[in-house]
């Protein structure tokens, strides 16, 4: 992509707010490489102690599912209610289950 050469590519930024939590997507930024992207992520997205760990990844490297496939991808799970504990009836007097 010739455009890529002229402009700084886009990176997506993920922050772990504190130990014990997963990294969460917060937005994007521009940088020439991952090293610079990390520094930019620090300066742009963690000015108020928002995190203890950062991930950056080139936006171009993310493969996303297509909303048109949402039915095929996610609908089939809908009627499999036996995967949830509430599906099973256990008498109230039975404890610790």
């Amino acid at each position: 992509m010739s455009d890529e050469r002229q402009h700084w590519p886009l990176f997506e930024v993920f922050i772990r707010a504190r130990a014990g939590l997963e990294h969460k997507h917060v937005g994007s930024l521009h940088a020439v490489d991952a090293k610079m992207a990390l520094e930019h992520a620090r300066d742009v997205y963690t000015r108020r102690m928002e995190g203890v760990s950062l991930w950056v990844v080139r936006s171009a490297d993310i493969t996303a599912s297509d909303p048109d496939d949402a039915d095929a991808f996610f609908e089939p799970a809908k009627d499999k209610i036996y995967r949830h504990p509430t599906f099973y009836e256990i008498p109230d007097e039975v404890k610790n289950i």
Partner: protein
Amino acid sequence: MSRASVVPVSVDFAQTERFRYVLRLADTSLILGQRLSEWVGHAPALEEDLGVANISLDLIGQARMLLSYAGEIEAAGRDEDQLAYLRDQNDFCNLALVEQPNGDFGCTIVRQVLIDVWQLELLSWFDASTDQRLREIAAKAVKETRYHLRYSSGWLVRLGDGTEESHTRVQTSLNDLWKFTTELFTPDEIDRLAENAGVAPNLNVLRGSWLHRIDEILNEATLTRPDDVPYVWFGKRGEHTEYLGHLLSDMQYLQRAYPGVTW
């Protein structure tokens, strides 16, 4: 010059000298922070606006701690703002390097690398200083400075080993600014007294580690270290280049125009 004069060895680091020594550190951080803040809103990329602003805020924060400490040593009732806003040019004792104009972004980065390595070496040394307050201030500042150097050296490598134009630009800035580095390692009486009192390091030793680090960065940035020049500016003794006066008349304008009021 004072280099040749023999200073009697003394562990007694008197109040006036300690005040002066701390003020040098404070002014160097303050003037550099002020200079960097000129970039905010005008940097080469939006992300760089934020990066430079962060460094500027760290430096002004360091200056505030150091100025307050200097004020306490002086014990004449001057607070951080009185020291920052109501002293004249010849009472400022920052290193002449930091008052140099920003120039282009590359010039700002060269100045930053030269001073970041110096500050990092110095602040790391302060961990062993006999001055407890300096130890405490340095413990916080050293973490900030480590990031400053990561930022500035990263940029110097990009610009030095970037395009032909960028290489030429930063090499020129390096040649221009190099003469101001002599001051960093040329001790005067106060530096020697500070060293003897165990407050500050031996500047010659500091120079060794500074040069080593600088050479590594310049090498990676494919830049050539310029030759040392004999003339020494002594910003730390109040001998400033023509630029400081303008910076101060800007910075101190409101306090001077409306004396004695609260903002």
